[in-house]
């Protein structure tokens, strides 16, 4: 589905992405892990067009999307939620989803078309059902809980019916209970929507539990790639990231 070939990116002297090649199978659920500053978010930024690579290629279903704008990449089918929930503070949850759906339907620039149309409302209610956010649909995005903001951020990405859904630390800043709730939401949405899902995560329990494939970054380089048991046994990953005592888990 998504293929990354020999991609490089440096900021001044910092090599944030060092010759990374990766592929994500259609419908798979993969994670990207690595210490702080390893270049995980940078990789997401490269894939979604927020920054341009110095060299290398990104292919979506065989099509080269390397130099497209963020908007073009979104419309090709790569949706994204952000490390810090990235939402619209003064809109209600429902309005934010309606506005996003309007964009998906290509009617977001209609000057005189009433926004509160039956069609947009029905579609947004369906999406609210999927996200299980009905009870807070009329709250302002800035007033809902941090966890709900993260779900809404995912909902905004989902409203565009992406083929590939990329989540940057979906459980960041959450307590243990909320965290596992988020994990089940992610798994549920992944199955329901049949998307290719890629997520960045620091919590190893979560990573090992739900990932089909784990990719480990360090200083911008891909140091390992494989399923949970392969990664747990990988000498380099243990040294670099998991620590000695990890084998016992």
């Amino acid at each position, binding site marked *: 589905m998504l293929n990354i070939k020999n991609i490089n990116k440096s900021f001044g002297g910092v090599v944030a992405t060092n010759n990374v090649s990766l592929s994500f199978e259609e419908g798979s659920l993969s994670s990207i892990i690595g210490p702080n500053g390893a270049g995980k978010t940078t990789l997401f930024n490269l894939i*979604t067009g927020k920054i341009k690579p110095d060299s290398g290629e990104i292919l979506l279903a065989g099509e080269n999307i390397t130099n497209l704008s*963020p*908007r073009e990449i*979104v*419309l090709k089918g790569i949706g*994204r939620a*952000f490390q810090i929930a*990235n*939402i*619209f*503070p*003064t*809109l209600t949850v429902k*309005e*934010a989803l*309606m*506005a*996003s759906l*309007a*964009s*998906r339907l290509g*009617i*977001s*620039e*209609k*000057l*005189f*078309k*009433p*926004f*509160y149309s039956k069609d947009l409302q029905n579609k947004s209610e369906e999406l609210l059902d999927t996200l299980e956010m009905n009870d807070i649909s009329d709250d302002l995005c800035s007033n809902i809980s941090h966890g709900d903001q993260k779900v809404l951020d995912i909902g*905004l*990405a989902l*409203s*565009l019916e992406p083929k590939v859904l990329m989540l940057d630390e979906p459980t960041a800043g959450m307590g243990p209970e909320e965290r596992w709730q988020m994990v089940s939401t992610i798994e549920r949405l992944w199955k329901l929507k049949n998307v290719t899902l890629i997520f960045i995560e620091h919590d190893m329990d979560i990573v090992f539990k739900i990932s089909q494939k784990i990719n480990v970054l360090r200083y911008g380089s891909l140091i390992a790639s494989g399923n949970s048991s392969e990664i747990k046994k990988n000498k380099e990953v243990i040294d670099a990231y998991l620590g000695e005592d990890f084998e016992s888990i």
Partner: protein
Amino acid sequence: MNFIKFHKKDIYISIISLLILISIALFIEHPWPRDFLVSIFSFGLLAMSLNMLIGFAGMVSFGHAAFFALGAYAFGLLLQNENFVMYFGQFSIPIAFVLSVLITGLYSAIIGIICVRLNDIYFAFLTLAFQMFLYSVIVSWVSLTGGDQGLMGGIPRPPFLGIDLSDSIHRYIFCSIIFVLCIFILRILNKSNFGYTLRLIRDNSERAEFIGIRVLRVKLICFVIASMMASVGGIIMALFTSGAYPEWAFWTQSGEAIFMIMLGGVSIFIGPLVGTILLRSINDIVQIYSSHSDLVIGIIIMIVVLGLRKGLVEYFLEKISFKKK
């Protein structure tokens, strides 16, 4: 029709406002209320259209009055041109009206293409710079514009379709209709898909781009529409004074529009209009007693901004909803 059903309330409000405005002309002979209201129509449109940029889209322009002035000068110059009036005869006024709005639209599109790429303070300064550019053109091109004296010699107002704009009642009713229509259009825009796309951009333009919004294009469309609305305000002022003055293109005119918005409040649709009424009233009242009206107005604005930290309309609406609870 769906559209009418959806906007039923706004259509009623518009019709009722228009009837009230017209009845003022029919029942009150003294010209003062009409003159006052025409200035409200004119500056109200300036403030309301500026709030389409500031309140809807989060684009704080310091140079909005340029388009107000351009509308006024274009309208005046077209009608002062004998060939124009000879050619279009009794349709001179409506055609000059439409052309002036379109000329302003075109000019704002050219400026907008450059300005909308910039954010925040850079956008504000660049719009200000373009306004001062227009101001210096007006002041220095004396043969065309009359320089600091303004457009001299009056603007001819040939009657059309039985409407004679040199008659003060006709002119007032004409301006009322145009004004209510423009406010209605702004209202529809505010509640449309486009209006909500502007809110997305105002709240978080980066995220808007990541849900597929063409941010620059939408900002440019907004900039052009707001400028055209401001030009209508300028045309009303030109009709009213039968002239056009360089002060309208000076930066203080944009500043005044920002004061109006601050006084009424950015977040409520009608706020800037209320702000306009307040500012004009305060101005007229203070002028009776003192020649330092700017000082008094400055102090009032400081009290509102520092004391309430929001516009007056926002403040009172909050009070009311608080009491209800």
